[in-house]
């Protein structure tokens, strides 16, 4: 272990502890149940942003279709919950009781085959992670083995997001169409709509997010993480050092997709429905901006970026709805032009030096400072 690495590592660990404290202690302490549920919803987007830090920040692969994976994870969970809600008793007024209401409206008389496995909770949990990963594998395999990268990859993922949206909306008998899968009530008999349930789900979500961040940190600090940075910088050199570059890209893309799927599933649980409006191009690009605002290289920054943008969105649209798009647009431009490394970059360039100066005078107190700005970890 080198001295420099240790210090970066240390900053990252401190950042992790602080973000854990913010999510687990600070936010629940200062917000009411209603706002906490909102924060919980925002944090589900942070899963996507963390995935983007790995994909885009580390490996330089910008996907404009992460909403696809978020949506797939969310749909998997929604299918399970919908089946649980559609017992023959609860749906006795339908012409075919026991199937989801929207299927009945679309004259479907039997549950489609791909819905059947979602009766099982175990299968659903696996599917939440595996279904997005499989699609990511297919896309990644096709693209990366043929060396599609950069801009082209971004545009193609965007097109795939568009295709999936049209498909989901068009096949409403199987998917609930533009309304999505709504009116989800219970999880294994447990009412997920109550305030206490939402609080519990918030903490489940928070722990999952922290686990995902910890896992991502482990990935980044492994040799694989360094290879990703290396191939962002000099792809050919990595290739001619004997690595199958495509395999590494596929892996990180699938990994990001899988954790986005977890975010989607937690979203469904906390919000109570899933609809195609989270699959399309606009949400996918918004998720990129969460990541960019936090700092595209910082896992911890992704969380703050997501929280900050969504908090701004909510409070802006409460007080000045007309101004919201201006503010959002300006944010995009500012983050690109003025601080490309986002909040994390601001922290390393402005806050950390202060600590260092301060730290020299009174060593060891810097970590205790209550700043909310994240630590950068390269």
């Amino acid at each position, binding site marked *: 272990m080198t001295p420099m690495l240790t210090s970066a590592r240390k900053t990252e660990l401190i950042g992790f502890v602080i973000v854990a404290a913010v999510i687990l202690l600070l936010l629940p302490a200062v917000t009411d149940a*209603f706002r906490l549920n909102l924060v919980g919803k925002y944090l589900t987007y942070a899963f996507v942003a963390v995935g983007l830090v790995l994909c885009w920040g580390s490996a330089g692969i910008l996907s404009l279709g992460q909403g696809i994976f978020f949506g797939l994870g969310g749909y998997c969970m929604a299918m399970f919950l919908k089946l649980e809600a559609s017992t023959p008793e609860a749906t006795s007024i339908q012409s075919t009781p026991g199937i989801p209401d929207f299927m009945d409206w679309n004259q479907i008389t039997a549950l489609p085959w791909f819905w059947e496995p979602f009766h099982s909770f175990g299968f659903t949990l696996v599917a939440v992670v595996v279904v997005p990963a499989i699609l990511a594998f297919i896309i990644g395999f096709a693209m990366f083995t043929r060396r599609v990268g950069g801009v082209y990859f971004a545009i193609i993922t965007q097109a795939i997001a568009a295709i999936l949206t049209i498909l989901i*909306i068009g096949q409403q008998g199987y998917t609930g169409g533009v309304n999505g899968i709504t009116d989800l009530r219970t999880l294994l008999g447990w009412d997920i709509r109550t305030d206490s349930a939402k609080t519990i789900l918030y903490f489940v979500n928070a722990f999952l997010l922290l686990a995902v961040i910890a896992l991502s940190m482990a990935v980044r600090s492994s040799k694989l993480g360094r290879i990703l940075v290396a191939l962002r910088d000099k792809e050919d050199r990595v290739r001619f050092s004997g690595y199958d570059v495509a395999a590494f890209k596929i892996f990180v893309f699938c990994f990001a997709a899988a954790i986005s799927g977890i975010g989607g599933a937690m979203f469904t649980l906390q919000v109570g*429905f899933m609809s195609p409006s989270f699959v399309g191009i606009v949400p996918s690009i918004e998720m990129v901006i969460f990541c960019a605002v936090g700092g595209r290289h910082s896992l911890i920054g992704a969380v703050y970026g997501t929280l900050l943008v969504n908090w701004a969105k909510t409070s802006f649209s409460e007080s000045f709805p007309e101004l919201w798009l201006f503010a959002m647009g300006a944010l995009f431009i500012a983050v690109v032009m003025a601080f490309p490394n986002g909040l994390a970059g601001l922290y390393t360039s402005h806050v950390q030096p202060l600590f260092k100066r301060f730290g020299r005078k009174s060593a060891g107190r810097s970590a205790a400072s209550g700043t909310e700005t994240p630590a950068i970890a390269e």
Partner: protein
Amino acid sequence: MKTNDKGAAPRSMLRRKLMIGSAALALSLAMAPRPGLAQSPPTSEVNTTGLAVTDDTVTVGILHSITGTMAISETGSVQAEKLAIEQINEMGGVLGRKIEYIQEDGASDWPTFAEKAKKLLVQDKVAAVFGCWTSASRKAVLPVFEQYNGMLYYPTFYEGLEESPNVIYTGQEATQQIIAGLNWVAEEKGAETFYLLGSDYIWPRTSNKIARKHIEDKLGLKVVGEEYYPLGHTQFNSVINKIKLRKPDVIYAIVVGGSNVAFYKQLKAAGIDMTQEKPIVMTISVTEDEIRGIGGENIEGAYATMKYFQSLENENNQEFVSAFKAMWGEDMVIGDVTQAAYLGPWLWKAAVEKAGSFDIDKVREASPGIELTTAPEGYVRIHENHHLWSKTRVGHAKADGQYEVVYETTDLMEPDPFPEGYQ
């Protein structure tokens, strides 16, 4: 403007005339020693569930998209709801309490709708919410309203298949809107073949399903084609060619949003002259609002079936239109949904007054049977299933962007959100 249940109708009519008809009188009424206060029951009686009701105010919510793609459509509803609230306040409010409103932006994003609905109900404790436009936004907020027991007045004509105790549907459900129009076009115009077309989502699909059942099973006529295009699609030349090939008597179009504009412009350019006898273009998705984007000259001659057109000739409507324009500008146009949104606050007021309470459960109980004799569309009544009995009209589009009403059902159409034989 005033609503009431049957017995009190004549008196309230008179009072409304005094109010709206004469500004001087309204002023004097406002300055009079608070006539409302004398008759206003104590808050503890009218509000037993902790709603945002004080001795002289009651708070309601308005929940529509101000930003995003749906803002185009929802603006009219917001304007109508604000107008109704202002008029009610000028008359002394509800149970002697002025209505205050909290407006939230759904931002064309369904979870935002759910989120804001929850805020309105949980944090702001509003007594009623007027809002939503798309089915998706309604579906998103529905569990919230059911869980926290709120009351939503939903203005849009929609596909039906829903009947919530927490929603009053002030627009028509699909059968009300569709059946009368099809009967009319079959009887009056001798139409025999139909080509169904729509944007690809639940409302057009469900509506066309009902239309097809009615055409084939009830009228014994023929559907020669049915197609859907993604939302936002802008190229309709291929489908227009298909239509030309099949030569239907009626092109039944339920295209929405930006696609609408493209569809009618291209239809006209392809030489389908809607002012001719055949083919007839019939739509349930183009209100006067949409015509502004399409351009009156591009849709001239098409028929629309809905319950309300701005050109309706009755006293209620004339007052409504002039009040709306006075408040929001002379160049405003008013479509079906805008009028339905306007009904929301009035229906709520009538229900509250009938119940003598703002409590949601009591308002809900009082709602069925509420009549509105002063609605711009004429007379409406709340059905047991929380939809409105209303008449359906056929409008003929003119080049100036208005519809000329060419037919009106003699009876009120019964709302039937789960129509037997149409599923």
